[in-house]
């Protein structure tokens, strides 16, 4: 028992008690505590185990710079892994467990690993486990690695709110400098947002008795009032975790343990970085023993949380501002020896807790060792923004140098450590005045690392990187900081080297006889502190992750017991009447072939292309010649990419001289509109061509089958439906219940089909009337599954299913425009390349299986040769049991497929070999008698 609760002081509410457990033992704390401060107050020292050697660890510091105490926490139903104890606010009923330890941090069975430290030096797994085979050891090592563990599933109905925001000035850091700057700027009329990651503003001010001559609490209340009165906003428990392109600042706001944090994407005109500074750790023997802490951490625990970290402490501090903190701690009743080791290497005594400090021949009895090798400005955001760093040789620290004009550093973050200097600087910078000269001197003289000893001196506490590891890396020539980092894992722990990097750099500098700035720094990357992935996900989950397009006839489909599913980004009926998909689809196919099927084809593209240059334009976009198309007529065609590959297929109807409707595939509408707009605006006169996507304005009801004409006739559309007057591939405009209806006689099934499109307001009536008309003829609704079979029986292809990124139109039997079309068109040159002319191109064919054989698996390879010479020459793209033909059918892409028609071919799938015969793609009504009926 070393730490204890002070009788007074701190920002905690002693009148209320919060109960919690740590590693199964019950403790209590107060509102305002973090888990770390509450545990110290309860006299707990060991709060975790290091990553590699499982050494006992206590907190090094009081806030986000603590790398040691990491807990898995459960509160009610909510479990979160890897919570830093020093930044997690205590809530009543929390159950915390230290990560990476079993059964507890205090009694961890893996602590024996520390005995083997000689064998676990930097890069040990590159050396120790290479023989006979790394993979023998990998599973065990992987199992031992890692920190917190997940429990349970994702939290349902719990997601981050994401907001966008902007302001004139964002002040990051609510310490003395930040508060002063925010208040001054707000009173000068700027819209100011001040963010601070603590629940209570003030930064390090709580370590001092007064600010600017006023009691701390009064001074902070006054500034808060000034900011709010002038319309400024203050966001507490909010971390500015990163600055991204074009000055976007990511803000993460905590809302308590059981709530997800929220994300704000802030766009400030200007940013003042008042992020303060951290203690630089001192490298000495056994400096990881629980009880060795940062001086600033101890002062913060006392000032903010009313907790003394020990009773008797030795302090080794290498900078001028330590005096103040030492006197504060003495005022709180700590017994302090200030130690000046000179050239001797200090050594912390004790194993599970500090029992003393040995400096040369002198032994100091103590329970705590407080160290500071200087102050390190927190410059992460500066680097995120693209600012440069300078080495301040007086402060022995990196400070902000040249940077973008919109960001300014003040206070300790700028190397201005004195309180009065920081206040003057904040006032000046907030009003746009020049930065005043500092009055106080600050000087740090960190003692250099003592090299070449047999002592273990820690540099990265969490990842167990010692000075010896750095020396080893240097010996093996991993001297670049980026190599040093990756070889030793220095700075790769969850704190990302906030404490360890500079200690590591100074060790490497000492080893090479260089200055720290010559060694360089690693890259500072967001996020500054770990933030949950949930923050980025927000509402992009479940149905909202990829929102489906919905049909206006969805209620009608649901009423008919449709199985709704996603088809090309739309929620569409798969089949009707519930039950088994295959049986339902087969029933619907038979109905469509004997009477008629009615389906919702609304997603079918309906992009109008209009204007005096429309004809020339669509003739250029389409592979096929469109210029010769007469008004009232429809043509099937392809759109290609410039490399000649098929991008989309569909029909185009010509309404009149200057007006076309492009009917592309349902799933390609957005892409085709983009393609049309690109060519329209980039390369044409956009005032002579207009592209308008009306897909969602014209829902489509399609009737297909022998009875289709009879059904449509009952709708009284005012169109002569006779086969002589309304031929296949023609287009007519009519009326349905006083509203316009557009009827296209095109077919995706091989039977007579009428695609009827009407305004949204009439869609339900048109659907209802069509179904009602079909019922007496035993015709009814069919879903997408049946449609897929119907089209495959005819060999009608689906782009992207029966084609791939290399398929060209002549591979599909549409080779004539390639040879004959005179006008330029998209993809024309691509169709004349060596690749396009190869004779072994994969072409679309049909496949038939021997009598009685089962259907072929989709994706199965078509193979030629055997044994060593066996090669895949194609694959099955579509495969169904055809209810019409009473046998399996399939489509495939096959090398030289058109020339091998009639041949047998081997089909290979998951070790199973099958035989099939190459047949024409169209296996039903090849003469098209039904189509033209």
């Amino acid at each position: 028992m070393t730490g204890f609760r002070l009788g007074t002081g701190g920002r905690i509410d002693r009148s209320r008690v919060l109960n919690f457990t740590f590693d199964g033992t019950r403790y209590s704390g107060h509102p305002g505590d973090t888990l770390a401060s509450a545990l110290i107050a309860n006299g707990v020292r060991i709060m975790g185990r290091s990553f590699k050697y499982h050494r006992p660890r206590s907190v090094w510091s009081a806030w986000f710079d603590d790398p040691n105490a990491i807990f898995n926490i459960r509160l009610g139903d909510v479990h979160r892994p890897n919570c830093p104890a020093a930044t997690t606010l205590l809530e009543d009923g929390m159950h915390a467990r230290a990560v990476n330890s079993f059964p507890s941090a205090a009694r961890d069975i893996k602590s024996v690993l520390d005995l083997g430290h000689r064998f676990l030096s930097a890069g040990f797994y590159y050396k120790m486990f290479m023989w006979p085979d790394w993979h023998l050891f990998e599973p065990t090592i992987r199992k031992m690695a890692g920190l917190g563990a997940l429990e349970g599933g994702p939290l349902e109905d719990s997601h981050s709110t994401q907001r966008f925001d902007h302001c004139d000035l964002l002040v990051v850091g609510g310490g003395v400098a930040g508060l002063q700057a925010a208040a001054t700027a707000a009173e000068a009329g700027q819209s100011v947002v001040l963010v601070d990651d603590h629940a209570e503003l003030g930064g390090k001010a709580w370590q001092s008795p007064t600010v600017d001559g006023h009691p701390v609490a009064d001074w902070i209340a006054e500034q808060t009032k000034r900011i709010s009165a002038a319309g400024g906003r203050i966001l507490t428990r909010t971390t500015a975790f990163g600055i991204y392109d074009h000055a976007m600042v990511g803000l993460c706001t905590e809302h308590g343990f059981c709530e997800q944090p929220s994300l704000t994407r802030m766009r400030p005109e200007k940013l003042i970085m008042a992020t303060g500074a951290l203690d630089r750790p001192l490298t000495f023997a056994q400096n990881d023993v629980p009880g060795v802490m940062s001086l600033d951490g101890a002062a913060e625990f006392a000032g903010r949380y009313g907790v003394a970290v020990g009773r008797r402490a030795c302090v080794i501090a290498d900078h001028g501002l330590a005096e103040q903190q030492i006197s504060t701690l003495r005022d709180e009743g700590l017994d302090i020896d200030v130690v000046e080791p000179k050239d001797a290497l200090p050594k912390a005594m004790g194993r599970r807790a500090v029992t003393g400090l040995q400096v040369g021949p002198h032994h100091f009895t103590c329970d705590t060792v407080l160290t500071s090798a200087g102050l390190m400005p927190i410059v992460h955001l500066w680097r995120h923004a693209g600012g440069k760093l300078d080495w301040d040789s007086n402060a022995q620290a990196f400070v902000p140098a040249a940077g973008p004009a919109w960001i300014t550093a003040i206070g300790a973050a700028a190397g201005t450590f004195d309180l009065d200097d920081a206040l003057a600087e904040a006032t000046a910078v907030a009003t746009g005045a020049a930065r005043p000269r500092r009055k106080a001197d600050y000087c740090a003289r960190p003692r250099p690392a003592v090299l070449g000893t047999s002592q273990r001196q820690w540099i990265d506490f969490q990842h167990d990187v010692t000075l010896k590891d750095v020396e080893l890396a240097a010996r093996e020539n991993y001297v670049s900081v980026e190599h040093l980092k990756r070889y030793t894992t220095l700075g790769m722990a969850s704190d990302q080297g906030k404490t360890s990097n500079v200690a590591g750099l100074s060790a490497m500098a000492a080893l090479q006889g260089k200055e720290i700035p010559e060694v360089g720094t690693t890259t500072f990357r967001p996020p500054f502190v770990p933030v949950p992935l949930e923050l980025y996900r927000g509402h992009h989950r479940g149905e909202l992750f990829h929102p489906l397009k919905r049909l206006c006839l969805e209620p009608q489909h649901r009423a008919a017991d449709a199985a709704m599913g996603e088809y090309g980004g739309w929620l569409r009926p798969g089949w009707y009447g519930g039950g088994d998909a295959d049986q339902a689809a087969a029933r619907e196919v038979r109905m469509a072939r004997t009477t008629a099927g009615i389906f919702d084809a609304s997603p079918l593209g309906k992009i109008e292309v209009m204007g005096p240059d429309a004809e020339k334009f669509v003739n250029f976009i389409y592979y096929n010649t469109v210029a010769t198309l007469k008004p009232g007529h429809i043509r099937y065609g392809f759109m290609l990419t410039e490399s000649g590959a098929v991008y989309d297929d569909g029909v185009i109807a010509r309404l009149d001289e200057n007006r076309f409707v492009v009917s592309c595939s349902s799933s390609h509408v957005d892409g085709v509109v983009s393609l049309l707009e690109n060519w329209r605006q980039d390369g044409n006169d956009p005032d002579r061509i207009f592209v308008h996507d009306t897909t969602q304005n014209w829902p489509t009801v399609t009737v297909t089958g022998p009875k289709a004409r009879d059904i449509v006739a009952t709708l009284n559309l005012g169109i002569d439906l006779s086969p002589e007057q309304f031929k296949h591939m023609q287009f007519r405009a009519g009326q349905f219940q006083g509203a316009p209806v557009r009827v296209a006689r095109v077919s995706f099934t091989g039977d007579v089909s009428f695609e009827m499109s009407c305004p949204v307001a009439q869609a339900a009536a048109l659907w209802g009337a069509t179904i009602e008309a079909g019922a007496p003829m035993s015709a009814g609704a069919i879903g997408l599954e049946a449609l897929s079979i119907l089209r495959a029986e005819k060999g009608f292809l689906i782009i992207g299913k029966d084609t791939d990124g290399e398929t060209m139109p002549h591979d599909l039997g549409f080779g004539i425009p390639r040879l004959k079309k005179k006008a330029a068109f998209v993809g024309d040159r691509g169709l004349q390349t060596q690749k396009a002319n190869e004779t072994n191109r994969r072409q679309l064919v049909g496949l038939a299986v021997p009598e009685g054989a089962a259907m072929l698996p989709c994706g199965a390879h078509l193979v030629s040769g055997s044994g060593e010479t066996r090669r895949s020459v194609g694959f099955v793209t579509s495969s169904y049991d055809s209810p019409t033909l009473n046998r399996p059918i399939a489509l495939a892409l096959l090398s030289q497929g058109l020339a091998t028609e009639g041949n047998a071919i081997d089909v290979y799938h998951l070790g199973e070999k099958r035989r099939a015969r190459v047949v024409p793609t169209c296996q039903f009504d090849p003469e098209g008698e039904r189509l033209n009926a």
Partner: protein
Amino acid sequence: MQRFPCPFCGLRDEREFHFSAEAGKTRPDTTQDVSETEWRDYLYAQANPVGVSEEIWVHIPCREVFLMKRNTVTMEVLSSRALRKEHTP
């Protein structure tokens, strides 16, 4: 996240935009002979400049295709303008 100025809608977040092509290429007249090299350069050869780059972008919500000049190193956007020849009221 970057912000790009659509000449039609003003400053918007980058995720509303699609990159279309590097500016300055003209489609070869394919009714005449186009050599393999010429076609390859048109389709695939990109300058990928380090520094100032002129590019064609599309603003998805309004579908405006426009010309943007930006610095690929500093991410600074230098200018953007509509592609149409002149804006007639």
